[in-house]
């Protein structure tokens, strides 16, 4: 569990709406979501398939932008930065420095080995000269993370040579390489068997607890949601309720 004493917010989501266009048809996904995430908190966004939970995570992560309604403007504020108002360059910087993504299908780059996949986030963050000067420390951190996740023997392996659980641990190491303050995990165990999923959850819980990481996890599994500090239940694009895990 996260440190409940730290109650200052790291993220505030207000009136966020999102509509997708499928050809000529407009499909509203989020209908005005309000949400606050505190420092070092682990929240779980729980919802059925199509409820808009992944969309919300993408918006929080700066991968997408909410709809614009001048009469009720949406805003996502991270720390003192209004994410919804950031330019493309600042948004790129936000994604590379402040948040780390973990996806259901791992999304590793198949041509790179494990070490390359973990380091690529740092390469993007630091640029050519920055990476050259930080290379040693970046690789040291990558190896530490991989060792921590039991992958120190696999650093030269390609993703295709790894099991699902190993791939997801590599993806978690990649998300953490730039020491983000917030981890965004989209169904991180959704593609794993129960036992492997459990081990991944253990890894994430330990990280959140030990590193004081703020974690936003998307899941449809109430059992997983029960491990979070707080559960945001999303139904048809709206926050239905925010509850403590005991009541889930």
């Amino acid at each position, binding site marked *: 569990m996260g440190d409940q004493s730290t109650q200052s917010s790291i993220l505030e989501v207000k009136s966020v709406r999102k509509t997708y266009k499928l050809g000529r048809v407009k499909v509203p996904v989020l209908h005005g979501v309000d949400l606050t995430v505190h420092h070092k908190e682990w929240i779980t966004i729980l919802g059925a398939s199509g409820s808009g939970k992944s969309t919300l995570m993408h918006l929080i992560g700066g*991968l997408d932008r909410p709809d614009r309604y001048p009469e009720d403007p949406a805003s996502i504020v991270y720390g003192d930065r209004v994410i919804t108002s950031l330019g*493309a*360059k600042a948004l790129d910087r936000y994604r*590379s420095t402040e948040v780390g*993504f973990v996806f259901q299908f791992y*999304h590793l780059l198949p041509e790179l080995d494990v070490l390359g996949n973990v380091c*690529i986030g740092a*390469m993007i963050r630091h*640029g*050519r000269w920055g990476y050259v000067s930080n290379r040693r420390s970046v690789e040291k951190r990558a190896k530490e993370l991989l060792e921590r996740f039991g992958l120190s023997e696999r650093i030269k392996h390609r993703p295709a040579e790894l099991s699902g659980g190993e791939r997801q641990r590599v993806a978690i190491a990649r998300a953490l390489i730039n020491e983000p303050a917030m981890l965004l995990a989209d169904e991180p165990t959704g593609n794993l068997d129960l036992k492997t999923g459990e081990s991944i959850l253990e890894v994430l819980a330990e990280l959140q607890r030990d590193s004081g990481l703020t974690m936003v996890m998307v899941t449809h599994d109430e059992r997983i949601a029960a491990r979070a500090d707080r559960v945001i239940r999303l139904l048809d694009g709206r926050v239905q309720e925010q509850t403590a895990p005991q009541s889930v």
Partner: protein
Amino acid sequence: MIVYTRSVYQALLTKKYLTSKLMPILAMLAVMLSVATILITWSVMGGFLKTLVNSGRSLIGDVTVSWPNVGFAHYDELIGMLEEDELVEGATPIIETFGLIQLPDDRIELITIKGIDVQSYNRVTNYEDTIWWKPIDEPTAKDKDASDVRLEPDYTQAMEMFRSNAMTLTRRNPESGITEQAGVLGVEVTGLNVRTHDGIYDPRSFGFRALPDGGVERVPGFMPAGGSVGLTVLSLDSTGKPVDPVTRTIPIANEFQSGIYEIDTSTIFVPLDVMQEMLRLDEARKVEVVENPFATEIDPETGQRRPKRSEVIGIDPARVTTVLVKAKEGANLQQVRDRVYAIYQLFEDKHKGEVPSSFSMDNQIRTWEEMNATMINAVKKETGLVLFIFGIVSFTSVFLVLAIFWSMVSEKTKDIGILRALGASTPGVAWLWIRYGTAIGLIGATVGTAVGIAVVRNINGIHDWLGETFNLVIWDPRTYYFIEIPHEVEIPKAVIVFVVGVLTCVLGSLIPAFRSARMDPVKALRFE
């Protein structure tokens, strides 16, 4: 300082994409083939043009001063004035005219006759190099089995004599023992020299001449050893009016090969004074014509009355139709031409009324390039056309690269989404693909240029191998006049082809790069 574009990740992914996929290798192959094809074509065509031009230039000097048919007088003085100039290496008088040639088999053909002063002509042109029958030490490039008769030690003395004859334009008459003035014939004129696929000439030992009674008579096949031709020209008086045809038998001292088929099939060199005499361009006495045919006068020697004779009132100097000028090494030809014209103006001032006006001569003083403009331009246009066609064919590699990249961007859609999620910027993602295209272009163009240069440098060896292995002969010296396929790799051309090859790839990668940059990262991540 944080840099968001041109990052290490682009270099790493470019390297990985290049080495782990078949498609970039195909793209590189396409670029390589295009670059090599263009370079080989350009080099061979360029070499062909250069060889052709050099061959054409070999017998015409750098600048010509020409007044056709009737010619101009005092040419020795003009040559003296020209040779005093710092831009002029030397000058020589020639007479160039057309006539009829009667060949050993009694065929009569039109021929270009050049009356030359062989010593000065050899200084101004490459005349000696063009003489065919002479001893040689090494077989020519295609003569693999050294079957050239000129290599035969038994014939060395004879060949030396033929060369000497060509350099003096004389031949000793074996019957009378008298040394006669002789001509040097283009090696293709008689048709008695058979050009082999080794690029050498195999002279027939004899030819045939049809007789009026229906029989045939053997005639000498090897012209320098006893062959003669009949030359007929139409002489003109100093005003250009035809006087009468003049025919003369000319022994053949040797044969020449300039490398230009047109010249070698229809040209004969004869001594300058022979042509001056035949065309009545030699020095002549000017006489006062006696208008009354019955007029008489007293012979001062006998004191007796005799029909009145014409009175000599002056000398009409010898004339030539052309003066060839050789420029000093490295001199600008147009500058030399202008200088020659200026000298001619001075020359005209000295001989007002006796030589063509400098106004008329303005178009008759020309550089060798101007003289051969038609031929050079034809080959240049041909080269341009071939390059244009190959260029269009090679331009398809742009679309090939585009298609390959389009397909790769589609295949790598998820990777683009991942990179964007990790903070890669849109220019950074676009740059990844442009960089990738540039890498393919650089590798393909480098290999293509190297292959092109290697092929061009060894094109004759490759051609020989194709001939020996597959019986595939594209360049037959019997058809093409140069023994070997002309070729020349010019560094500026190679650089142009290389740069265009790289740009082609960059161009082909631009649209897929912009497509990847515009990709919605969320859609990219969800792409299946």
